[in-house]
């Protein structure tokens, strides 16, 4: 087995510089690479392009990088929960490319799967399709969308082994598996790092081939954005 383990976030982010394009897993605050984001804040790298479904909230997730003005451009599908984001976007400080969520997921998948571009019906006839090639298949119109080219992908899993195999939990899986496939260097942080042989190969979601560096994460906050419950009766 090829050992992918690094000792911490600092070592995992070696080679990260300003001006790079990153992918960051997560949906809202669910399944985000908390340790890698903290390390990016610490490194102080700037002019970043971040591909992530959301942009965190004002004081957590990618919101931490926005506060420090480290992000030049965001590529996301939904950014509704972040006032600072909206302010920077409307004032023109932040470049924003909003794209349909399914298109974002498929562009990430295509990146890792060696597919340079594909046709999707999402966004046809809207401003999302402006300037893009469109084509009719079987009487329906489709828009040509392209893969990305990120230097690093930062993902977060529930469990991982030293060979980089990953298992996700619940809806924290979301964009993480496709982004893991897409990174030139994929950094996986996990809640529980185990030896090879401890994870059942039948249950692996992301095979270790897609992961270059893996580390045991620490101090997970796992903040809940909308706590909705059924009262105990």
């Amino acid at each position, binding site marked *: 087995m090829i050992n992918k383990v690094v000792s911490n976030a600092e070592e995992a982010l070696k080679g990260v510089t300003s001006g790079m394009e990153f992918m960051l897993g997560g949906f*809202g605050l669910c399944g985000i690479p908390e340790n890698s984001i903290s390390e990016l804040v610490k490194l102080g790298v700037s002019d970043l392009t971040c591909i992530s479904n959301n942009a965190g909230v004002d004081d957590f997730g990618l919101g931490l990088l926005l506060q420090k003005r480290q992000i030049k451009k965001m590529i996301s*599908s939904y950014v509704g929960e972040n006032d600072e984001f909206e302010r920077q976007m409307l004032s023109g400080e932040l470049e924003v490319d*909003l794209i349909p969520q399914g298109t974002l997921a498929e562009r990430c998948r295509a990146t890792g799967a060696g597919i340079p571009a594909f046709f*999707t019906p999402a966004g046809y006839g809207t401003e999302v399709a402006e300037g893009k090639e469109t084509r009719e298949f079987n009487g329906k119109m489709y828009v040509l969308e392209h893969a990305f080219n990120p230097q690093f992908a930062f993902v977060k899993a529930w469990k991982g082994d030293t060979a980089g195999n990953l298992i996700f939990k619940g809806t924290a899986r979301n964009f993480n598996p496709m982004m893991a496939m897409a990174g030139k260097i994929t950094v996986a942080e996990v809640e529980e790092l185990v030896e090879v042989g401890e994870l059942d190969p039948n249950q692996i979601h992301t095979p270790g081939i897609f992961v270059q560096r893996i580390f045991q994460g620490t101090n997970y906050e796992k903040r809940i954005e909308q706590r909705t419950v059924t009262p105990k009766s």
Partner: protein
Amino acid sequence: MALSKQEIAQRIAQELQDKWYVNLGIGIPTLVANYIPKGIEVEFQSENGLLGMGPFPIEGTEDADMINAGKQTVTVLNGGSLFDSATSFAMIRGQHVQLTVLGAMEVAQNGDIANWKIPGRMVKGMGGAMDLVASAENIIVAMMHTNKRGESKLLEQCSLPLTGVGCVKKIVTNLAVLEIKENAFHLIERAPGVSVEEIKTATAGKLIVEGVIPEMKL
């Protein structure tokens, strides 16, 4: 009486059919899950990667790793499944999901829908809405008939940036149930006690009223 948001959801729930997989948007659509008609089986899909979505968790059992697309903590029912975002949108684009219910800021008489952006003012993003409306066989829009300023949301043409073109076929508002065909809104039912005249006044687009329009049954 115009319908409450709960009653709009209740009326939409009557459209559910046995064995359907259904995606519910944020807001009024989410409430539809509370009114599934007796004797039918449906499963709710949440596009962040969950099929078989259940109710909110019992207080104290909520899990940060188990949320719906509105980022609310939820549960997964027995027989449910979890998957990644690419698989989730394969279900949607591949038309494995039979019905999408979502909100809108504007709907046009040709079936265009706008619900993601007010230029220069509100830019939250489209999330999964563009994928959903581009692919769903059945789309029901759940919304108020007029906006906060009292202006009609059922228009000849949308003025806001579009989410999808020519895709909406049915609308349930606080005043009426309408179908879209032949470039017009067709009035199907009215809310209890709401007159056809009131609906006409609140509808800016072309409205077709044929015969006697029944009241909704809730």
